[in-house]
């Protein structure tokens, strides 16, 4: 098992965010940051090694093309790769994989959102992968949950996600693109013929798995033991997410205070 790979990735988090979406370098926030899109109600940006994902959430709007009364609000999720984010250039039309990821994104977030608080309304969640260096879907789920929280959408808990790659006896936490493609092929004859990729979304406060998506082929023991691993990985990301949110809130409070002062002066101009 390759837990060290994860650790080294976390440790390299000291350097400045590559996209420069964040101007101030900080150990925690240059990997996760909320409030990056000014026009959105809530937004978040996440960088996991080279994987970069932006996510934004908008105000609830009426569910289009729906006549009946729906007791629970709906989440509309869209997961998209930027045309230049992968090794091959991607067309603008969403392909089957992106559609499936959108579905997984929705399934991961839905259990955590208090949907009964906005009946008949729909909240739009958009995730865009700017660069894919593996585990993009998990990054998008974590990012989307942060964006939802940033948009003050009522939630039971944050959602964090992690990806585990399995290839023979090796397990890769948050695999890179190369590791992902390795996990998609059958390992050569050996002790274990297990292979595949598992993405899991987890809400630590209630200990609930909101999504568990596995592909490849593995025996049941491998699948069940992965659950524990993914859960641990999610717990560590959870801390990061929480801290990031806290930081966002304190920042906003400070800004608010400043604004109140400014507001007074602008009132003077306006009046």
């Amino acid at each position: 098992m390759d837990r060290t790979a994860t650790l080294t990735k976390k440790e390299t988090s000291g350097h400045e965010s590559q996209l420069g979406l964040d101007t101030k370098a900080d150990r925690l926030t240059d990997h996760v940051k909320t409030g990056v899109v000014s026009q959105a109600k809530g937004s978040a940006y996440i960088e996991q090694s080279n994987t970069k994902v932006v996510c934004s959430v908008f105000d609830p709007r009426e569910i289009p093309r729906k006549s009946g009364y729906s007791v629970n609000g709906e989440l509309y999720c869209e997961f998209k790769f930027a045309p230049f984010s992968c090794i091959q250039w991607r067309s603008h039309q969403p392909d089957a994989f992106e559609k499936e990821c959108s579905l997984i994104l929705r399934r991961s977030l839905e259990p955590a959102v208090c949907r009964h608080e906005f009946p008949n309304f729909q909240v739009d969640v958009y995730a865009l992968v700017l660069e894919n260096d593996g585990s993009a879907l998990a990054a998008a789920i974590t990012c989307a949950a942060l964006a939802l929280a940033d948009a003050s959408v009522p939630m039971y808990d944050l959602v964090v996600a992690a990806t585990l790659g399995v290839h023979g006896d090796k397990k890769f936490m948050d695999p890179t693109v190369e590791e992902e493609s390795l996990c998609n092929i059958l390992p050569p004859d050996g002790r274990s013929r297990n292979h595949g990729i598992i993405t899991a979304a987890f809400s630590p406060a209630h200990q609930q798995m909101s999504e568990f998506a596995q592909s490849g082929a593995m025996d049941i023991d491998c699948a069940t033991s992965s659950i524990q691993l993914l859960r641990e990985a999610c717990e560590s990301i959870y801390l990061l997410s929480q801290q990031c949110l806290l930081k966002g809130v304190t920042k906003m409070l400070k800004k608010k205070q400043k604004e109140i002062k400014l507001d007074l002066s602008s009132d003077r101009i306006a009046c």
Partner: protein
Amino acid sequence: MAEILLSEAEKTFILHGVEEGFRCDGRMRLDYRPMEVETDVVSHASGSARLRLANTDILVGVKTEIDTPYPERPREGKIEFFVDCSANATPAFEGRGGEELGTEISNSLATAYQSSQTFDLTALCILPGQQCWKLYIDILILECGGNLFDAVSLAVKAALHNTRVPKVKGACLDGGTVDLQLSDDPYDCCRLDVSDAPCLVTLCKIGDHCVVDPTAEEETCSSGSVVIAITEKSLVTSVFKTGVGSFHPQTLIDILKVGQTIGLSVNKALRAALLEEEQQGRKKECFGFLK
């Protein structure tokens, strides 16, 4: 999924029944409803099967075509799933209504068949890097009465079992073009080995328990389901969640274990049925759709 309306009291009745281990139609939690399968129902297809599970009715046709393999997988053939949720099945599929469900099912099948440990795609290779067979698996949902994933996967496996790929007598590379000689005799063809093809088992969480083969009413009561793809060798080739609920990790582990045992018996039952049909010899009549 086409949601049906239920009153709170009906939901409670179903919920308590599941807790009690005695469902509305008299089944235990892990019982399937009787299924009926028939292969070779579409004469023009290379392979076909029709499966009926209570009110769910699935027709699968397999078509073979010659294609060039993916450059990164030169020794493998191709397989493609397409699910057509016809508006006949339920009015909810009208227009674009069934499209989302259709892609969800076809994507889940593609994932379940992805690993080379499931369905051996190398058998579909004709000339490595040059030509291979491509299987188009068209799934038609004729009627929708719940538990689509399970029914579709069984029907697909039966159709693949029934599929006959023409024998290639000779293939040679002539410059850049490939020359293929197919056997003229329509009965001279290869069968596919489907022993490792997975079956999907949906475990539907109602209250604190899981049931298999939920009726449409039970699906409405459920907070979420886990779909597990299991092969005869008890390999898990795909797991995903449907519905809005979430699971405690321990519950998930239990579900996976239960799913595995059920998957094995479903695989066994299908295999037995297909064998029995084969022993009856080449059928003279096709029973088809008349009930």
